[in-house]
């Protein structure tokens, strides 16, 4: 029953947020729901680690290790994004209680839709949940109501809804394949997995293309990534953290979940397709990173890069699946941290232009340290967790005998490293006039501090629970 609580808590918090009193109630409700959801997610993870699968409503709601990992990541980010919002939105929409309450209500509904994706056991319903994540985040992207923000929201809505509509035909084809095996089968992920070898291969191939292109658009895979830098840079920073840190990963989850089904197609190299798409995205993002002028867009391109790394890793095979899922977790933690740091810079300087931020280390040593740490973290430098996951991705590629792909991936990661570290180095250490140092809101400082802890801890030590869940989950996405 505890799984059902996870999406219900934020819905309740959304309702409470709408009560027309001071926004402090909305804040308290949002934080309480996020913390309780995190506790529930950990409880589900522990249960899954023991029994492998938790089913709450048979054929409808449940969680395996893959779902549990995603739930924990979502819940952690929900907590930090909520904390961060207190100060950030408090300053952005000060004096406007209605706007603040609307923000929290919308944020909670968005979080609830994210929670729904991994716990639904039927692909058709999962698709509905993915579509809800778009619909419920459109107004968060356009929250600032600037021309650029609304333009970004428009591109985001049109392109990702287009992607989801293409993907739905893929899902329908899969259900048709299932029906053609036996009319009485339940329409669940598990039934799809077991019936896949008996489905017509042509149906599965067409479904694969539609699902990869459709959901790939929402994951931000090259060349369908064009909306992502806009949306992920224009949204308020806590929303950016959720979009880049966990929303794209949540959609990627659906593609990964279907991998065993597509691997069942005789003579069809489904994993090689992932490898090719992944490398293309990493490469394109690495070169795009070299020419960015806006530091939030820089982080958005880095998201495209990391999604590419995860796809490449899964393309490497079973060892790569473990590494890819690990990367999904560490990227979520690192990227949200980076957007919190970038948001702090934005609060201090009121600009996203890299060239206008110089000498941050003198203006605000705390923000500078956090920005530098987050850049190092997303660039994959030890002792941060992304280093370990990227290292295991490269190692799994070598083990799989894909030396050339590992070489290319390593090269692209190195280019992306330069693309991130060079501008951040200038922002932090560059010569320039320091601005009047405004104090950061306390909740922003707290969210930044809380975000860096798991990133460092996982860089030094992998808890047995995490390792166990990753191993279980990687076998769930391998045939």
């Amino acid at each position, binding site marked *: 029953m505890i799984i059902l609580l996870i999406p219900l808590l934020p819905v309740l918090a959304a309702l409470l947020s709408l009560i027309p009193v001071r926004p402090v109630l909305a804040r308290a409700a949002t934080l309480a729901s996020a913390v309780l959801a995190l506790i529930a997610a950990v409880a589900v993870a522990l249960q899954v680690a023991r029994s492998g699968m938790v089913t709450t409503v048979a054929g409808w709601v449940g969680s395996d290790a893959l779902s549990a990992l995603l739930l924990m990541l979502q819940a952690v980010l929900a907590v930090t994004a909520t904390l961060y919002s207190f100060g950030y939105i408090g300053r952005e929409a000060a004096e406007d209680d209605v706007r603040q309450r609307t923000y929290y209500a919308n944020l909670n509904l968005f979080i609830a839709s994210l929670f729904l994706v991994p716990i639904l056991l039927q692909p*058709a*319903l999962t698709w*509905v949940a993915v*579509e809800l994540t778009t*619909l419920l985040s*459109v*107004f968060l992207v*356009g929250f600032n*109501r*600037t*021309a*650029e923000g*609304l*333009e*970004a*929201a*428009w*591109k985001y*809505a*049109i392109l990702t*809804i*287009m992607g989801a*509509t*293409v993907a*739905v*035909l893929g899902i*329908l*084809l899969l*259900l*048709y394949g299932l*029906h053609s095996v036996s*009319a009485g089968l339940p*329409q669940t992920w598990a039934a799809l997995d077991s019936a896949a070898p008996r489905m*017509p291969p*042509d*149906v599965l191939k*067409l479904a694969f293309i539609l699902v990869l292109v459709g959901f790939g658009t929402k994951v931000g895979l090259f060349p369908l990534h064009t909306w992502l*830098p*806009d949306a992920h840079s*224009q949204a308020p920073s806590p929303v950016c953290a959720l979009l880049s840190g966990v929303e794209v990963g949540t959609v990627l989850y659906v593609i990964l979940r279907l991998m065993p089904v597509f691997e069942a197609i005789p003579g069809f190299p489904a994993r090689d397709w992932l490898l090719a798409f992944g490398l293309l995205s990493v490469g394109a993002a690495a070169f795009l990173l070299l*020419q*960015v*002028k*806006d530091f939030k*867009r820089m982080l958005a391109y880095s998201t495209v890069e990391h999604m590419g790394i995860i796809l490449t890793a899964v393309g490497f095979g079973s060892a790569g699946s473990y590494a890819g899922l690990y990367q999904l977790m560490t990227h979520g933690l690192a990227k949200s941290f980076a957007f919190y740091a970038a948001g702090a810079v934005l609060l201090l300087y009121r*600009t*996203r*232009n890299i060239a206008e931020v110089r000498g941050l280390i003198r203006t605000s040593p705390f923000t500078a340290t956090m920005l530098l740490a987050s850049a190092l973290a997303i660039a994959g430098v030890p002792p941060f967790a992304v280093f370990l996951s990227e290292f295991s991705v490269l190692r799994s590629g070598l083990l799989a005998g894909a030396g050339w792909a590992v070489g290319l991936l390593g090269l692209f990661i190195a280019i992306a490293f330069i693309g991130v570290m060079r501008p951040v180095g200038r922002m932090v250490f560059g010569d320039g006039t320091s601005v009047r140092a405004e104090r950061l809101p306390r909740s922003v400082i707290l969210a930044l501090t809380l975000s860096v802890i798991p990133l460092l801890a996982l860089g030094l030590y992998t808890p047995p629970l995490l390792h166990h869940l990753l191993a279980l989950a990687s076998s769930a996405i391998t045939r």
Partner: protein
Amino acid sequence: MPISLLHGLNALAAALFLITTFMFLASRQTAASLSLYVRQGLLLSASALVQAYALHSLDLLLFAVITVIAKAVVIPWMLRRSLAPSFQSRREAELAVSVPTSLLIAIAVSLVAYTIAQPLGGTMPSFIAVNLPVGLAGLLISIYALSVRREALPQFLSLLMLDNGVFFAGVAIATTSPVWELAAALEAIIVTVIVALLFRAISERIGTTHVGRLSGLREEGSR
């Protein structure tokens, strides 16, 4: 009714469906595009109705009814009500590619759709052999239409046409639960509500919905 007649009726609906898609690609006035969308929704519903009768499927009957309500009544009403000025204007929308070129591309795209769907048709009952290629052609042509339209509302109408294409293929292959069909129809309505709200916010804030001319989001354009 003999089954061959039902197949014939379905093929007629499919042919008209494909023609409406081509007409949509060629139409430049918003009001005309919307009425083509309504007609297409009716044809989608007709195809579902024929198949519901042929297969004695209550789910498909329900789907046909929901489709008529959502796509021929609710969505056009909402769009006309909330975005009235855009529909009254007889101005022709700006396209990135000329109409004759677009139509040639659409023919090529339809051939691609038939080629892709061919191997699937052989092993399947013939409703699928008709609906899948036509639906796929609708999907691909709508994506093309979306990419050459430079204004917000025509882009959104292309998105709705894309939805029709998907479900035209979908009715023949989906033998799913009514829950899912209801969710799909509701989803189209929710999408319309959200996009209409966003559209109004954009026109209030910026004064234009010519998204091709909105160019704040460029690498050099950041402030």
